[in-house]
């Protein structure tokens, strides 16, 4: 059993399974607590969170750091096939009479890929989700360079190549506002210029349709849907559709919103990116006018698997990885201010489990 566990790429899945096992035993003892357990697991399924979110802090956090550390230890590892985790646990499946305890595939927390730095991964709660929707927005259209830069860096992390291309879907106004992706510029992110296919949709509805189609295509390294602002079609319902599709197929789908406000979304992860001064060039520190590696100030506005907060990332194109620019940043993870009310879950979360998560990094 332990060998199986270590082969899992991330922690949360394991926690869930252990807990579902526990709930099995408890059902012999007390029917009331069983009911509570099953309700909790149902809520967890609906919210797509590990069941541990909904119980009082217990000693279940040990697995989390292990999982995060492991995914960080193997940088550049591509997204796993969804479902390998399920096959590793034949024992958790056959729960007669209490089938609802068993996690169905759609709601298992997805594997995450490492961004190249253990601290960064820990801040994101184990890495960047390798399947499903993630949202990225910038305040102004002129910040489009930073948005595109982070998206391309993610594409590099997801291993974009000509065989596993990136599909970049834009509505036409977004392209007129912030320009077309420029193939020669991908070199700064170590992405081959042939690794992108661009879909230039005349209307936003077409773009969303294309993104939904692409979200089910496992041959893609990353799907990027670029839209302007907070359109009605990409509200809670629209993002939910995208997320469910992408999550089911295990395809990472990045929704990039230009000049958009924070808005409630079905994506488990929402990030805000603004411009930031680039690093000085390392070898030419006396040349103060030179522009070095790009910095991405990342505000984690919503995150299902870790705290919100702000981190600054530096992209290093040599080792194709992010590093933490400043840690801890002012107003950083511990005791960070909570996101706006619309992001928060309906009920308060117990704090103990999260503190345990932090020790992971």
């Amino acid at each position, binding site marked *: 059993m332990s060998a199986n566990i270590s082969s899992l790429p991330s922690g949360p899945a394991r926690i869930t399974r252990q807990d579902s096992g526990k709930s099995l035993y408890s059902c012999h003892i007390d029917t009331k607590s069983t009911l509570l357990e099953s309700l909790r697991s149902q809520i967890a399924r609906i919210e797509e969170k590990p069941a541990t979110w909904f119980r009082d802090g217990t000693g279940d956090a040990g697995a989390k750091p292990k999982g995060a550390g492991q995914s960080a230890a193997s940088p550049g590892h591509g997204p796993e096939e969804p479902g390998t985790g399920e096959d590793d646990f034949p024992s958790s499946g056959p729960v007669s009479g209490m089938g609802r305890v068993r996690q169905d595939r759609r709601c298992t927390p997805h594997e995450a890929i490492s961004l190249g730095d253990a601290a960064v991964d820990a801040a994101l709660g184990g890495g960047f989700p390798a399947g499903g929707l993630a949202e990225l927005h910038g305040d102004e259209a002129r910040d489009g*360079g930073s948005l595109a830069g982070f998206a391309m860096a993610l594409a590099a992390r997801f291993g974009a190549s000509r065989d596993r291309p990136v599909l970049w879907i834009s509505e036409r106004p977004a392209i007129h506002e912030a320009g077309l992706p420029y*193939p020669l510029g991908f070199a700064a992110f170590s992405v081959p210029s042939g690794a992108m296919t661009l879909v*230039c949709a005349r209307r936003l509805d077409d773009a969303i349709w294309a993104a939904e189609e692409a979200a089910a295509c496992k041959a893609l390294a990353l799907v990027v849907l670029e839209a302007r602002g907070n359109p009605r079609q990409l509200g809670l319902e629209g993002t939910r559709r995208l997320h469910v599709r992408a999550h089911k197929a295990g395809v990472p789908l990045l929704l990039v919103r230009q000049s958009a406000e924070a808005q409630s979304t079905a994506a488990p992860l929402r990030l805000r990116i603004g411009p930031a001064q*680039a690093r000085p060039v390392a070898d030419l520190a006396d040349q103060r006018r030179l522009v070095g590696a790009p910095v991405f100030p990342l505000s984690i506005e919503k995150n299902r698997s870790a705290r919100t907060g702000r981190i600054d990332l530096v992209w290093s194109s040599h080792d194709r990885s992010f590093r933490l620019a400043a840690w801890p940043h002012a107003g950083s993870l511990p005791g960070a201010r909570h996101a706006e009310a619309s992001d928060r879950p309906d009920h308060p979360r117990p704090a103990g489990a999260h503190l345990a998560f932090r020790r992971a990094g």
Partner: protein
Amino acid sequence: MLPLALYQSAANANRITAVCERAEAQGLATGAGLSEARARFPGLETLLAEPSEDRRLLAAIADWCDRYTPLVALDPPFGLILDISGCAHLFGGERALMDDLLMRLFHQGFLARAAIAGSAGTAIALIGVPSQPVVVRAGEERAAVSQLPVSVLRLEPEMASLLHRLGLKTIASLLDQPRAGLARRFGKGLLRVLDEATGLAERPISPRRPVPQLITERRLFEPITLEDDVARVLLALAARMKGDLQARGIGARTMELSLFRVDGVVNRALVAAARPVREPDTVARLFKERLKSLGDELDAGFGYDLVKLCVYETERWDDLQTDLSGKAETGAAFAHLVDRIGARLGARSVLAPCLRDSWQPERAAGWQPVLGAADGGEGPSRTRQGTSEAADAPSIAPRPLRMLVRPEPIEASFAIPDGAPISFRWRRALYRVRKAEGPERIAGEWWHEDRPARDYFRIEDEAGRHFWLFREGARDRDLDPDFVLTTGSAAGSPAWYMHGLFA
């Protein structure tokens, strides 16, 4: 019903150009003046002729005639030429095909004449006079046309009247003359039309639509209107097509679905595929997206009674041995995704990068449609990508991640004469420059004389945004003779442009 005549204004006079049979029976002939005709026939209704509408109607009928043969050519103003070689047996022979065609046209309200002959010239000559539908066997062309008047040859008016005055009124009389004399007296043109009419020379026809490589079709006894029914028929056609494609070792790149409506309208949907396709399911899915995007343009009306699937462009497709790992499948999955998106959003919306040998940034890299081999660009650009990527990408200075669709003019203050900008105004917002890298000079291509050199700067503003600006033209020509001033900029001052955004 009143008798009807159409008139047209030519040479400052309104003349009758067409009359209905009722007016003809009363004695009105074409060519009469409009006022005269109105005076002579008080009950006559006259309308202005619309040649453009006539052409449109003829094109629509030609579309409809696609049900008989893919080779339909226009013979303006009122004729069509159908090449039915190899098609007649599908309709039970030439005579049966002609009867079917005339019967259907009659039911649609058209008066039509038809003739079948071994060469187009003979058939055209035969329908020049009102007659019964006729099928001329090979070798009988001369006998068939010899009794016809010369007017069926459609000669120039002067030549026709000259022949008339000379007493050469039938084709037989022309054929009796010695050829050399005819050629000397009337030119080679007359001999050519004569040869075409008698089947000695082939009259070329130009089909109005491209000729498909493969066609499958299904005629339906009961017209269908439902989308699902169309999809089912399409699937059956695609399944039949698969066998033909397989036998030839090819796959389809461009396909067209033609839906023939009962009332003669033809709806068409064209799809393209990035890779050759053969599987019926794939074909059906592509057309499903295409038909969905057509949406309201596709009006089934009273239903379709003929569904036709044509393959225009094909590509060689050898059968591949696949392994159990399923790796080959992922590439195919992506190609199919591209096809579906292209079918729905239009083939021009799915773009792939193309690199060119140029230093002009906007020329050096761009986007071109993945689908549609008609451009012919895909093959070369692919190879170019493969060779160049590793070689030239690191050697050039950093390039922006996003490039504006076209350079946008900005107002910049800069260190004279040719320093980096200090602050600039782009889209009405002011930016102050903190860091600047540059200049990187990119000279205009010498074969374009009007393109001056550009100095590119990579800029970081106070907030940390990174831009790619360039300057065109210089303040002081003595200082920098290479820098020619653009005609558009104000006298003496260089023009600054925003061109791209860095991460």
